[in-house]
């Protein structure tokens, strides 16, 4: 046996290393790092329901749940929570990640002036939980508070596109929609999509706060919204407290809470005179999941009907076959069968995205006088 120094190296060489020490390093790492990052892992892991059944994912979740309990017992949970939010805040900090050299888009109002008689503030004073506290407490955008920063495009139609992976960059609907809208005159588009987000899990991404921020930044008068594909799960508060558990998806309690979330968002748009075009979700490949999505669509439809500034655009039958079943292929205008759905049976290809975009724009043309370039 060759002699080794205290670093596991063979004497006289820096090249060869004892595997036992490598194992020790990895074992300690695999205990320390997930322990430290337990909060974040818990958010990640429970987001990805498709990982269920993965042995290592289950192991990880069990371990970090234990780590969270241990932190609480040791009284370290406050420290770790503060530390978690410190990094989140740092990433959002104006110095590092959100600073604009020039405010977007071109200004036609000065700071302190009002837009259409409505004074807009940013959402800094908001308590994270406040946006879900009640239906009437959806927004900090009030008529009496002084404006901190306002930006408004000169265009008549200032369109905000928001949503989950369908609307995010690279998503099947957002890109064709934004591209097609730009073919119209007197119109500006701002898109904000977030993968894996929705209205159920504001602890992961708080859309109410984000929408308030976007309204104060871009003062849109039209919003195109698409959510729901990640929402068939537990509903939480922004701080991660479970309001309705995963097992209750589709029950009256779940529907009621989810409906409240939808109303909160719609109220926010209503208060700011924004016309909403809410895109419904298409049929999904997995039948169980599809049922849940159908339920979510019905909640959207029911809630949207209560608002005169909101329109629901169903896509269910747009993307099914003639018999109303799920199909991965749809005919194009020449009758050629084109791939319409991604391999996950959830997302859309650009071909299907184009169909949805056309549907949305056609609905918008009924409401507004959009003029092609």
């Amino acid at each position, binding site marked *: 046996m060759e002699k080794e120094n205290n670093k*596991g190296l063979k004497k006289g060489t*820096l090249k060869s290393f004892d*595997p036992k020490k490598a194992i020790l390093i*990895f074992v300690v790492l695999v205990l*320390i790092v997930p322990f430290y990052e337990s909060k974040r892992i818990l958010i990640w892991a429970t987001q990805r329901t498709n990982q269920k059944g*993965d042995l290592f994912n289950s192991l990880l979740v069990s371990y970090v749940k234990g780590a969270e309990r241990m932190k609480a017992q040791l009284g370290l949970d406050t420290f770790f929570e503060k530390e978690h939010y410190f990094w989140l805040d740092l990433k959002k900090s104006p110095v590092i990640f959100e600073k604009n050299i020039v405010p977007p888009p071109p200004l036609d109002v000065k700071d302190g002036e009002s837009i259409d008689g409505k004074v807009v503030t940013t959402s800094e004073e908001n308590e994270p939980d406040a946006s879900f506290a009640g239906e009437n407490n959806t927004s900090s955008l009030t008529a009496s508070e002084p404006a901190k920063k306002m930006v408004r495009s000169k265009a008549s139609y200032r369109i905000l596109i928001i949503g989950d992976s369908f609307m995010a*960059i690279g998503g099947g609907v957002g890109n064709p929609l934004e591209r097609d809208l*730009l073919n119209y005159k007197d119109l500006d588009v701002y898109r904000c999509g977030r993968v894996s987000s929705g209205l159920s899990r504001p602890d992961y991404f708080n859309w109410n706060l984000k929408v308030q921020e976007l309204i104060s930044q871009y003062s849109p008068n039209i919003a195109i919204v698409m959510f729901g594909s990640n929402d068939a799960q537990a509903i939480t508060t922004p701080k991660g407290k479970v309001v309705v558990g995963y097992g209750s998806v589709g029950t009256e309690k779940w529907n009621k809470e989810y409906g409240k979330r939808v109303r909160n968002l719609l109220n926010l748009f209503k208060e700011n005179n924004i016309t909403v075009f809410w895109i419904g979700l298409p049929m999904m490949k997995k039948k169980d999941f599809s049922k849940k999505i159908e339920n979510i669509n019905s909640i959207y439809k029911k809630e949207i009907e209560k608002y005169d500034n909101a329109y629901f655009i169903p896509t269910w039958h747009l993307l099914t076959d003639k018999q109303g079943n799920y199909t991965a292929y749809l005919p194009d205008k020449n009758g050629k069968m084109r791939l319409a759905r991604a391999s996950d049976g959830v997302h859309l290809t650009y071909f299907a995205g184009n169909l949805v975009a056309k549907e949305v724009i056609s609905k918008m043309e009924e409401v507004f006088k959009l003029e092609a370039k």
Partner: protein
Amino acid sequence: MLFPTFEFFIFFTLVLILNWGLKRWPLIWRLFLLGASYYFYSTWNSNFLLIIIIVSAFNFFSGILIRRDYFGKRKIYFISSVIFDLIILGIFKYYDFFRLSFEELLRKAGFIASFPLLEIILPVGLSFYIFRAISYNADVYSGKIDACKSILDFFIYVVFFPYLLAGPIVRAGDFLSQLKEGGAKRIENFYENLSLILLGMFKKLVVSSYLALSLTDDVFAVPQNHSSLILLLAVFAYSLVIYFDFSGYSDMAVGFAGMLGFRLPVNFDLPYLSLNLRDFWRRWHMTLSYWVRDYIYIPLGGNRKGQLRKYLNLMTAMLAIGFWHGANLHFVVWGAIHGIGLGITHFLLGLKNKTKTPFIKISNSFFDKMKEKVKVFMGCFITFIFVSFAWVFFRCRTMNDALVFVKTLFSFEKIVEPLKLYVVFLVIFGIVFFLLEKKIMKALVFAQERLSLPFLILFISCFMILTLKLGPDILPSFIYFGF
């Protein structure tokens, strides 16, 4: 399971323990490696396992038939194996492209035909393991290597999880010998491997992900909504995104394999510091470009059949690389741009050789040194600009999108637009990081070599936690998983 995830780290730690623990029983050790790799692959989609097992089995037996030359028909065995591999690749990767093309062709000829609509999912890593399989049979056919006698070893070669999904494209001759007699007994270059894992994670999670999420994804999605200046910035930023994404993955693959006692070939060598396009392809995705050189360019005649044929072969090789990435016109155009660029480079280098003036001449005079430095700088600069603009065709989803991008870039209708300061910072950071990458790597190795075990663990933990903290909340998939 993606490399920079906790699930993978748990999986890998378990594999690491059993890998070194089972080496005294080589058969069990190899069975374990195969099982672990199949498990890893099944976490993507268990149906993919069947395809990889069929491909492995077919190519293993083809190799034996080629080597033993039954009935003197080794050429037929070899061609059959290549055709089989290409059919598998064609069905899973190019079926829809061929279906639509044939339907269109028949329609023009006056026939109405519709081929079956197969809802095909591209098995992740397919293009990579098909290339490994083809190279194996080609090497057996040409006599470079002997046919693998152990079906177990060959199956491991096809599916070994560190390089399974996105390379490097390892040659059988380099890998199979590492499985003999329980493989390596100790970890060679431990600190280099560890540094590769840490740096690879940082490159992907921090540098590439942020650049993609905050600039390039947005700009490339709808270029007409952005100014020429932003488009230009996005072009250069995408060069960094794809480099850090892919080289980050490759670094981690080499590092993880190294921890298990396997040596994998390097895939990148500071490609944006290439003096010319020929140099670039010797530094970018090296295992793919060497594969194409050895199994397409040279068999076609390489540069041995006259100048015109050489350029034609170069173009064919680059078109093959383009098509390998996907059956879309924009990939083919990207390959063609590189083909033309390489043709011009070879022509100019040929002229230089004729005039007997080396590209870089060693001289002692100050002005000569300066002149050489300027030459080197200009060479790198022009190559980088060329490669970056070619990436536009690679990155855009369709040819039409790419043309819109180029048109908007040069329209200058909207020259400036509001820009987030941190985006500029990220691009500058990316460039500096790229330039200093080798030095950072050396510094990491240097620091780790001098730390005692507890401090080493502390150092690695801090590095990993900081990388995760700085990384975005979501982990975008690796670009090359799509190929």
